[in-house]
């Protein structure tokens, strides 16, 4: 029997024993335990070390607000740092280790920082570590970084999977405590679609932790009955282990469901699901959080919140101590004393700051009124407390209650500001809630059970009534209003020792006072200067006392002092869950071309082009590297014929009586007079006059055009064209639909292209140069009747066609083309050879059409029609875009032909220094031209069109190199274009 502090009763299943380890030590607990309750049951009070001073710490709370009891859960790749022991469900085989210490938890070498604390007060680091200059990065900062942080990532890939989902409801109820259950019951009974979410694994909230009665039953029994009723309703979805972490615009809530964290393994299922909940209305019933009181050495293991002590006793059947003292400024602390006494736990003293009679009878306890704790003893576990009177009280557990703070967090996620309520000494939701949200119960400042139950029902009914549902008439459950008076007291001024406010980040009352002294007085300055509230618990127990202490210093009211901004998430959310399935290969979908399977079987190496995978080259046995393959593909295409899958180009079907006029608006050049059966190269500008996209558009019939766009811009061009259609030219009869995925399209290029196609295109179609000249297009059939489209266009500069068949025939089509090309030694070519050939021809592509260049820069200004308007026309005429020394696209070749050009090198006129002021332009694209036998490049250089023959420096300081290059025409091959017209 290891569980020295285990009591009877509570909601743990004693019939089963769960074995677990803490820092390697074997311990036992039961289903229904959290790690914290099990640790306490096993008498483990020391659980962790604080962030800055490495103070020994225990368990302060019983919920997600826990600042101290953080552990590394699990091991290996499953290691999970900074896990709150107070919400980690116990499972068989659980292993946990403490964090943030050098040496053992008991003997942390870093605890020396605690002795140096006078020199480590708020913001000390802003005032030193500046000399000598280099020491910050070399010495101080590495040391600080090493000692900072808390837990450790495994540095292995997260082995679990995550999922996401979407839920819709009329009413979202956040929190399944008394107010939330009452709200969900009311709404559920009316027939509304309800989602009830609670972060705990056992719904019921504080009903599980209290001994109060509802409708004549124990609170826990009433909660169980309510849950049974809700579970029986089809229109209600009860989600436990689900934290609603953020309130976003228009009724969208983020929620995290922990599916397998309570199990030894995820067994292939998602560990967690991130839900996006679309709600028409919401009821926030998130309860409240107890706050501590700051007094000297108030951070010792064994000093706990009074409500938490009660929770451990009532819900988990565990006592945190054998000789308990209570320190309170309100009635609620007395309930802890009473509940413990009823369980036979020795409650020795009730120290109340108020000079008031006992709230209730607590057998065996001494009531010390108008008193306060000012210091404690017991470094690794509480041994005694000292009162302001000097009296020393031996105790191993001090239950502290400083009153309760409504959990207003989600009410402030849309910049709402809470309001101070003097009568309960707490901030409550302000009037500016997220639209659709109402608040009920303790979260609304209604701190008694009876109020929570009736408010939950009433608020839910009001919400669903607005949606048109008829509320059920069933009255709210009945309970007594328990005593709930208190006084405002935040810290004990008599304490001379350090009194902690933010326990995790080690912010003390002195730090707050120093912050005030140095002028950091606004709450935001206080937070930023002292790091208050920036720890993993986001200051859930610390912020309000700290604000009150600052308000004391400034003399302002708490309302005027205000709070810092509450930001999502309510509790921390794993990155894996936020990413869902989108990681590794599943980060984004794959788009595959129709010949992908064929290409895979024929030696293709693929490259990512947006979401597409395209064949980059097709290696053949014996080739020594990619260059061998690419050179061969380009040479054989130019020498005979090559085939390339160009399906990825965007394809847009354009139909309508005004289609030609429409194209005149979106393209810089004119399309009105394009004859049926012809294709035209088109240039699109952005409205700011910069080149946007280029492609070809074919006129299939009078009112039917087929446009191609670049692969990268397919979606963007479609969007822009819809903008023109709907917003600029709403009365044009023109219709757009994407057919990108619908057609498998292949370029067939090279002197034998026609010969090859002649064997594939059905004989009825004339392919002769006269019958189907350069820039012709038409509907044809291939391979005995399969419908296809044929375009005589060329990117390679060779005699070339593009042939398109319905995508389902694509894989078969490339087989047909290759078979037909056997006698010509046809080769498939990939994007690399495609790139080589386009550079040889001086065609601009993405590196040149980079969103920074004009038609003038590209040498395409002749294409901008003067006779008509088009997008971008007017702004393209601005003076500084048309300067005489504007950059121009030209070709470059190395003076020393054996040298390899470098894309991204900058041009400097010979004799000038390589400075930004002397920068003449840059090399955009380079390739080795197998046809020319040397490296060639395209690039922009000032006045390039006038500088052919000039030798300039191409510098690439990043490679510590430079070379001399000659400015030449960008048309390296067949400048007259004879081949493509052949």
């Amino acid at each position, binding site marked *: 029997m290891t569980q020295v502090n285990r009591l009877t009763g509570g909601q743990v299943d004693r019939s089963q024993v769960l074995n677990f380890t803490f820092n390697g030590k074997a311990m036992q607990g039961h289903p229904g335990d959290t790690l914290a309750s099990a640790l306490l049951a096993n008498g483990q009070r020391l659980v962790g070390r604080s962030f800055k001073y490495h103070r020994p710490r225990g368990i302060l709370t019983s919920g997600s607000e826990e600042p101290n009891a953080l552990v590394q859960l699990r091991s290996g790749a499953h290691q999970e740092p900074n896990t709150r022991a107070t919400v980690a469900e116990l499972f068989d085989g659980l292993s946990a280790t403490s964090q943030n210490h050098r040496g053992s938890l008991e003997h942390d070498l870093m605890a020396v920082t605690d002795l140096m604390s006078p020199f480590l007060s708020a913001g000390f680091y802003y005032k030193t570590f500046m000399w000598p200059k280099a020491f910050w990065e070399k010495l101080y900062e590495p040391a600080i970084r090493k000692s900072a942080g808390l837990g450790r990532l495994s540095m292995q890939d997260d082995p679990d999977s995550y999922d996401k989902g979407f839920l819709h409801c009329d009413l979202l109820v956040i929190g399944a405590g008394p107010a939330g259950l009452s709200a969900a019951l009311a709404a559920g009974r009316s027939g509304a679609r309800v989602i009830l979410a609670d972060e705990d694994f056992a719904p019921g909230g504080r009903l599980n932790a209290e001994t109060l009665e509802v409708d004549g039953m124990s609170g826990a029994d009433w909660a169980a009955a309510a849950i049974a009723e809700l579970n029986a309703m089809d229109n209600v979805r009860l989600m436990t282990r689900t934290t609603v972490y953020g309130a976003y615009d228009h009724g969208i809530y983020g929620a995290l469901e922990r599916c397998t964290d309570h199990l030894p393994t995820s067994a292939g299922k998602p560990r967690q699901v991130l839900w996006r909940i679309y709600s028409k209305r919401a009821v926030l019933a998130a309860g409240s959080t107890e706050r501590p009181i700051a007094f000297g050495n108030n951070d010792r293991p064994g000093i706990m919140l009074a409500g938490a002590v009660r929770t451990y006793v009532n819900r988990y059947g565990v006592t945190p101590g054998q000789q308990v003292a209570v320190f309170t400024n309100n009635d609620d602390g007395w309930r802890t004393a009473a509940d413990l006494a009823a369980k036979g736990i020795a409650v020795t003293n009730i120290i109340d700051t108020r000079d008031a009679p006992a709230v209730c009878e607590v057998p065996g306890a001494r009531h010390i009124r108008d008193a306060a704790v000012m210091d404690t003893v017991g470094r690794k576990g509480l041994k005694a407390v000292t009162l302001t009177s000097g009296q020393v009280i031996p105790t191993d557990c001090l239950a502290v209650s400083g009153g309760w703070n409504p959990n207003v967090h989600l009410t402030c996620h849309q910049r709402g500001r809470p309001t101070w309520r003097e009568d309960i000494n707490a901030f409550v939701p302000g009037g500016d809630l997220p639209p659709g949200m109402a608040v009920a119960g303790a979260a609304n400042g209604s701190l008694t059970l009876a109020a929570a139950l009736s408010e939950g029902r009433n608020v839910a009914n009001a919400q669903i009534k607005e949606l048109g549902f008829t509320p059920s008439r069933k009255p709210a459950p009945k309970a007594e209003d328990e005593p709930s008076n208190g006084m405002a007291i935040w810290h004990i001024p008599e304490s001379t020792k350090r009194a902690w406010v933010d326990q995790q980040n080690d912010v003390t009352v002195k730090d707050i006072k120093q912050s005030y002294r140095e002028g950091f007085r606004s709450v935001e300055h206080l937070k930023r200067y002292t790091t208050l509230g920036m720890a993993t618990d986001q200051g859930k127990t610390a912020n309000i006392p700290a604000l009150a202490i600052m308000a004391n210093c400034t003399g302002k009211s708490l309302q005027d002092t205000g709070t810092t901004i509450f930001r999502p998430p309510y509790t921390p959310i794993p990155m894996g869950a936020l990413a869902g399935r989108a990681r590794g290969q599943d980060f984004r979908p794959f788009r595959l071309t129709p010949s992908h399977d064929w290409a895979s079987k024929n030696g293709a190496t693929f490259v990512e082009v947006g979401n597409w995978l395209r064949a980059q080259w097709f290696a053949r046995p014996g080739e020594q590297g990619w260059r061998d393959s690419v050179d061969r593909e380009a040479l054989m295409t130019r020498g005979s014929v090559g085939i390339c899958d160009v399906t990825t180009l965007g394809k847009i079907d354009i139909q309508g009586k005004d289609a030609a006029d429409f194209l005149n608006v979106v393209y810089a050049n004119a399309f009105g007079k394009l004859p049926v059966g012809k294709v035209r190269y088109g240039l699109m500008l952005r409205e700011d006059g910069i080149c946007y996209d280029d492609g070809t558009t074919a006129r299939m019939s009078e009112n039917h055009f087929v446009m191609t766009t670049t692969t990268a811009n397919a979606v963007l061009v479609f969007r822009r064209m819809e903008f023109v259609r709907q917003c600029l030219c709403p009365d044009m009869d023109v219709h757009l639909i994407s057919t990108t995925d619908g057609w498998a399209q292949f370029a067939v290029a090279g002197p034998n292209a026609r010969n090859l196609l002649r064997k*594939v295109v059905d004989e009825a179609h004339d392919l002769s140069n006269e019958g189907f000249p350069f820039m012709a297009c038409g509907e044809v059939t291939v391979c005995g009747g399969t419908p296809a489209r044929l375009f005589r266009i060329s990117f390679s500069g060779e005699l070339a066609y593009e042939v398109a068949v319905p995508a389902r025939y694509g894989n078969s089509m490339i087989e047909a083309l290759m*078979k037909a090309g056997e006698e010509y030694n046809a080769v498939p070519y990939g994007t690399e050879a495609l790139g080589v050939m386009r550079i040889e021809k001086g065609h601009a592509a993405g590196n040149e059409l980079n969103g920074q260049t004009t038609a003038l820069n590209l040498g395409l200004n002749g294409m901008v029609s003067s006779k008509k308007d088009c997008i971008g026309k007017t702004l393209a005429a601005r003076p500084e875009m048309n300067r005489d020394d504007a950059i121009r696209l030209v070709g470059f070749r190395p003076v020393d032909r054996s040298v390899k050009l470098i894309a991204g090198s900058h041009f400097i006129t010979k004799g000038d220094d390589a400075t930004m002021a002397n920068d003449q332009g840059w090399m955009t694209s380079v390739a080795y031209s197998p046809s020319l036998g040397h490296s060639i490049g395209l690039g922009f250089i000032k006045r390039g069109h006038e500088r052919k023959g000039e030798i300039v420096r191409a510098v690439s300081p990043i490679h510590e190199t430079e070379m001399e290059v000659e400015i030449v025409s960008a048309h390296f091959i067949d400048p007259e274009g004879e081949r493509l017209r052949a």
Partner: protein
Amino acid sequence: MLDFKLVSAPPLAGYDQSFEGVTLRAPADLAIVSLALPLGGEAAAEKSVKTAYGAALPGIGKSALSKDGSARLVRLSPDAAFVIFTHATPDAEPHVAKKIKGAAYTTDQTDVWTGLEIAGPRARTALERICPIDLHPDSFDVGDAARTTMEHLGTLIIRTDEDTFLLMSGSSSAKSFLHAVETSIQNTA
């Protein structure tokens, strides 16, 4: 002339799997033709469609079966609709154009899309993981249709029966789409 018949191989052809409580299959020969209603000719086009299919073009976000049940008309936007039907040969577009007598602009969309039919009592639970549309029958009834995005992929979802949904997404990303839907089924099993 090359003696070579092209073989039709849509990306998910023949896919048909059963999981606990849900089946997933790629319908064979799913033909899709888009209709664009000419500006000013909307009434004539609607009339022609009604004559051809014995059913009126439904409202936006709805679909309707033709009188003989062989085709589904899906209205996507004020001036655009899909005709979805079973048809093996690559002439779906002329087939529809002829049927409606050219009263609307038609474009073959068959190969643009890949179809998956998910059916069974757990279909909705699985779809909850990827579909942002509320599929509760009160807001998404039999016949309703919506375009949305699932796992980064544009998708058209149509409720064809109480527990049956036809999902259509881009054919180039068919494998990723299938993976997304299968994962949803497995994750909710």
